[in-house]
């Protein structure tokens, strides 16, 4: 019975390989052959637009307004991240924020001030195409009302260079869920695209059961993934867990980014969800942006997302001793 299995595998691989240059390898050398150009044209036509390589950055959980023992430096990691991203040789075309832009406060005025401060810091990014989804700290307390006033809709979609991006709000209801209305919107949005279209969903909470007892899940996340199941090329970017994590499912790859405020422990190793203690010697340890390079996959059915973790270390990105002094204002005053 080996033969039929090998044959199926051969056909699958061959079929995918045929499309490799077609969909994504748009460089002249790769699309030089008449077959390659023809396939590229056909797939671009099917998807509405051909994919061309570009890179984008995911930033997450900036929690503007938070100040406490796990991170006494406030927004400094966020500010450093902006510097790091601006200093990249290849400038990203998009910056995606996957929620908890601000840390919640009791009064509307303070919440608004934190959102404005977030906007001020984010406006320092050279990449002008910036997109965000809320986290529960931004939106759960009032159903996302203030977030909408300041940032606009909490769920929306757009296309960029042949990739369909979906911002999916799973935080603005009291429960950790997307909700029937938003799922209906997602179904409608996706219906416009062929199954070959590359799709990047960005959201706050994981859409799978990562650790429900730490509220690291979305109650109806499986329903969203069911809607995405027919699509051959799905990537879900999320935040919330303040640590990096990659989870592969048959119908999509889920990737979490680090936060820019403090890190949570590995749930497989830690009994409690307690932030990692602050280390003044390495104030940005375990924090940082994730740089994503979108480009050709190994086949027509994959969009390659190369990842590079950028740790915001004092030595690499500050270059002065001033930061240490900022940690001890009394020293400066003295």
């Amino acid at each position, binding site marked *: 019975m080996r033969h039929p299995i090998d044959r199926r595998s051969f056909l699958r691989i061959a079929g995918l390989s045929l499309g490799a240059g077609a969909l994504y390898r748009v460089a002249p050398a790769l699309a030089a052959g008449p077959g390659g150009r023809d396939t590229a044209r056909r797939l671009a036509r099917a998807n509405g637009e051909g994919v061309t390589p570009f890179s984008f950055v995911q930033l997450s959980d900036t929690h503007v307004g938070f100040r406490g023992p796990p991170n006494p430096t406030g927004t400094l990691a966020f500010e450093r991240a902006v510097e790091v991203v601006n200093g990249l040789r290849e400038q990203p075309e998009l910056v995606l924020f996957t929620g908890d832009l601000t840390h919640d406060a009791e009064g509307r005025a303070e919440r608004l001030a934190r959102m404005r401060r977030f906007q001020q810091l984010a406006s320092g990014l050279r990449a002008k195409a910036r997109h965000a989804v809320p986290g529960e700290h931004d939106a759960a*307390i009032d159903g996302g009302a203030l977030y909408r006033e300041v940032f606009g809709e909490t769920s929306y979609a757009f296309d960029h260079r042949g990739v369909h991006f979906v911002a999916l709000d799973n935080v603005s209801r*009291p429960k950790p869920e997307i909700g029937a209305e938003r799922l209906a919107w997602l179904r409608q949005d996706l219906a416009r695209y062929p199954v070959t279209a590359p799709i990047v969903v960005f959201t706050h909470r994981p859409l799978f059961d990562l650790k429900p007892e*730490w509220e690291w899940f979305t109650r109806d996340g499986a329903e969203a993934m069911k809607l995405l199941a027919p699509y051959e090329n799905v990537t879900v970017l999320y935040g919330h867990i303040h640590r990096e994590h990659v989870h*592969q499912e048959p119908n999509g790859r889920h990737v979490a980014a680090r936060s820019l405020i403090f890190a949570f422990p590995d749930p497989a190793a830690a009994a409690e969800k307690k932030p990692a203690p602050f280390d003044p010697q390495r104030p940005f340890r375990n924090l940082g942006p994730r740089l994503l390079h979108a480009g050709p996959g190994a086949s027509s059915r994959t969009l390659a997302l190369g990842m590079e973790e950028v740790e915001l270390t004092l030595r690499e990105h500050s270059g002065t001793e001033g930061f240490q002094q900022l940690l001890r204002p009394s020293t400066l005053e003295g």
Partner: protein
Amino acid sequence: MTTTGWRWARAAAAAALLAFGGGASAAGRVIEVKAKRFEFSPAELRLKLGEPVTLRVTSADVTHGFYQKELGIDAEIEPGRATEVALTPTRAGRFTLICDHFCGAGHGNMRLVLVVE
């Protein structure tokens, strides 16, 4: 890291650990649980294997969630009225129950540990 290393007791979760009847009339020993931002009181309950109990949960302030996925517990605790959750532990272990109805900045750490011995 992949999810491989994160597969803790998911298989065990498939087994019926507790009989759960949200809103059922009180059965067995009644245990009072108070919810307020951002804690349950008591924070830990020790239950005996096979002994039916009823958790009588009240909120001192806002609406809270009362959720433990592995055990199938999923209730809303609204201020002004008690919510009863009937349980009969059939398996020993330590289960963390959370508030899954957002109640403020400390919501993420609002939990109740059920220890079944």
